[in-house]
């Protein structure tokens, strides 16, 4: 029964994207129905992964080296589950926040995005992953182009070219690996792969592709504008789900395929530190609310990359892995909640200027509370998923005596506290009068509570951190 | 055979240079279409006839037509620099 879940996870997005595109008047209905089905399927998959021994699904019945194999791993399927949950809530949010013409195309496109995510998180075949990456990239750009201002379209064009060049680099890596070993399947490649110059070059190209697509610091020029100018639910999907997919691939390849060079892995970790501070400072300086959140994404991506500093054998790798996994989950939930809540505030205030948002806590208390919860998780205050992540990172940095990273983690936390508290204090001081309440609409209640759910979970799930660690093994 | 190969590849390289460094956009598009056709010949030399067919039809044909249409549109609205 669990075996057929994998084709089901391919069939469902394809069918619902078709339905949503055909009957564009009912796109929202099909989208939300898809969100429910997809979420329950991914929960079933999680259950299957937890109870069964690892298995592989061979498409077309052709065994691995020739055919395409999918294999659900624990980490990949849990990110898929969290992604499906975020997607469901964002779909509900989009039903009430987007205009009808935008909705008609938002749902089919983001359903295709789900298809791409399934391929990336489950596939064992590096060429299929390439097609999955192209699906994700095109969906992301198409979604961010739903906002038709020149600024947004320019940002989407820059995004499109970055993601296409990155796909080309990844494809070149695949080309070199196939030319050398004549194989495309990851688990078939592991025993034969050797440390040789062509292989290392292939890995180099792949890593650059992933860095560009994940928007790691020097290559993050496309992210801020693309995320900040998109419609709110799109921003949430882009920063919560899309960049995680390529980061997951980078981690997966590093853990299974790449022959690891410590210099390279330290280089990646230093990039992460650069990202933490660059993103944090830019976020502190920005005067636009959505731009602040987008720069905070760049900063948070840095924490994900820190795992590469602790991957060698001197330290306990499972501790750094837990830290990275919690950083990923916390950012996925907190950032989507943050974007969705900020969308409500921006909608009521009709402006994105931070200085104009003084005192909005009295008008949308639930959204501001959601933002505060997200901030707790992003800064890493206890009790939150972000805290669990930072705690593990600090422990592994302390145990491996890498003081540089220890201070980087603490400094990054202080920096994010600086810009997030600045924002929260602004929301809370000088409450606005009742007159502004007129701009509130009925639908805002639903919007607020979907955002609140996500932010709340990013804090609340910390109480289950032990069982999450146990699940990841 | 080596002579034909060399000729083909030199032509490809020259077209690639032209596409990258010419100033005029229209010129670049025309060179790109010719590039697609020569590339199809290269696929034939490599024994990949499926690719030659697809390259002529998709790469040179449809992409070329779309590019020409796009440049016409951009010229009409006076935003060739976009």
């Amino acid at each position, binding site marked *: 029964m669990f075996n*057929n879940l*994998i*084709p089901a996870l391919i*069939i469902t997005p*394809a*069918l619902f*994207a*078709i339905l949503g*595109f*055909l009957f*564009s008047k009912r796109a929202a209905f099909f989208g939300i129905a898809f969100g429910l089905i997809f979420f329950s399927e991914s929960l079933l998959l999680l259950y299957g992964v937890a109870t069964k021994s690892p298995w592989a699904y061979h*498409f*077309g*019945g*052709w065994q691995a*080296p*020739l*055919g*395409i194999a999918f294999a659900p791993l624990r980490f990949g399927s849990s990110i898929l589950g969290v992604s499906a949950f975020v997607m469901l809530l964002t779909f509900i949010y989009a039903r009430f926040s987007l205009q009808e013409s935008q909705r008609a*195309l938002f749902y089919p*496109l983001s359903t*295709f995005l789900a298809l791409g995510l399934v*391929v990336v998180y489950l596939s064992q075949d590096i060429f*299929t992953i390439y*097609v999955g990456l192209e*699906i994700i990239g*095109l*969906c992301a*750009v*198409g*979604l961010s*182009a739903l906002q*038709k201002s020149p600024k947004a379209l320019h940002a989407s064009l820059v995004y499109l070219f970055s993601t296409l060049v990155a796909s080309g680099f990844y494809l070149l890596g695949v080309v*070199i690996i196939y*030319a*050398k*070993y*004549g*194989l*495309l399947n990851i688990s*078939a490649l592991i025993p*034969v792969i050797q440390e040789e*110059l*062509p292989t290392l*070059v292939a890995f180099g190209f792949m890593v650059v592709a992933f860095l560009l697509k994940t928007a790691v610091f020097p290559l993050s020029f496309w992210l801020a504008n693309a995320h900040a100018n998109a419609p709110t639910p799109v921003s949430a999907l882009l920063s919560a789900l899309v960049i995680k997919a390529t980061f997951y691939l980078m981690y997966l390849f590093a853990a299974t395929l790449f022959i690891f060079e410590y210099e390279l892995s330290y280089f990646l970790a230093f990039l992460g530190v650069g990202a933490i501070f660059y993103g944090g400072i830019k976020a502190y300086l920005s005067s636009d609310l959505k731009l602040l959140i987008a720069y905070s994404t760049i900063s948070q991506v840095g924490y994900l990359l820190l795992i590469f500093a602790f991957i060698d054998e001197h330290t306990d790798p499972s501790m750094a892995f837990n830290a990275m996994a919690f950083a990923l989950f916390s950012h996925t939930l907190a950032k989507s909640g943050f974007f969705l809540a900020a969308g409500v505030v921006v909608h009521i205030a009709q402006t994105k200027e931070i200085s104009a948002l003084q005192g909005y806590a009295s008008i949308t208390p639930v959204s501001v509370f959601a933002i505060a919860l997200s901030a707790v998780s992003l800064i890493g205050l206890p009790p939150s998923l972000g805290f669990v992540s930072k705690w593990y990172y600090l422990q592994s940095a302390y145990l491996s005596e890498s003081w540089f990273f220890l201070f980087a983690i603490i400094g990054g936390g202080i920096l994010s506290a600086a810009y997030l508290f600045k924002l929260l204090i602004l929301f809370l001081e000088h409450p606005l009068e009742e007159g502004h309440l007129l701009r509130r609409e009925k639908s805002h209640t639903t919007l607020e509570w979907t955002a609140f759910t996500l932010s709340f979970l990013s804090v609340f799930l910390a109480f289950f951190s032990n069982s999450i660690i146990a699940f990841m093994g | 055979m080596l002579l034909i190969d060399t000729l083909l590849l030199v032509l490809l390289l020259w077209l690639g240079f032209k596409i990258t460094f010419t100033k005029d956009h229209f010129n670049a598009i025309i060179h790109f279409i010719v590039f697609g056709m020569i590339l199809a010949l290269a696929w034939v030399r490599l024994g990949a*006839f*499926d690719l*030659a*067919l*697809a390259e002529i*039809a*998709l790469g040179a*044909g*449809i992409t070329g037509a*779309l590019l*020409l*249409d796009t440049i*016409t*549109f951009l010229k009409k*609205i006076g935003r060739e620099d976009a």
Partner: protein
Amino acid sequence: MRNKTFHSLLYFLAFWLFVGLSFILTNINTLDSSMHTKLFEAMPHSGVTHEVTAVLLNFRALDTLLEVGVILLSLIAIHALEPNFRYTPLSFENTITNTFVAILFPLIALYAFYILYSGSYQSGGAFSASALLAGGIIILRLVKPRSFFVPKELILRFLYVSGLFYFVCVGMISLFFGSFLEYRDYIASFYIISIESVLMLSLGAILSAYFINAVQRVKP
């Protein structure tokens, strides 16, 4: 000035990238590809005799399914841009071209079908055929823009999605007998030909829609 130094640095880097990469790629010594040998072992069960078609529509049919998804997806993304760019489109309408096209278009369509069916034993197949068909439609559109017949939006959309839909349906039917998209021997050639035919029509429609949608878009 800064721009100039940046450019010369860029050209310098590009040159060394070229040298290094060509050195590495020309000195690659390949291990024996086990995929390659497996392919020839499996060929008798694939239902077709042309290896490329067998890989595309049988051994690695999932890739092709996703790729059809990409084509459909980019059409949807184009719709998101509301592409009714109203301007006088390229057209070459006169008596000579009209007569020429009246003869040419049926020939192109016929040739597309030939390419499609010859795909099972020689080079060809759905993608080239659909591109030919789309090329024919585009020429028709260029030459006879005014007499061009456009069906209703909903019918067009059915046509666009039919390729992916049929592919997924074949996958679901094959789930009852084995894995997703599993077909062997006798039934395989039937499935492959039918998938290719539907793909040709729907991809032809999508590819020509890339071109035509930008100019005239019918409201639903």
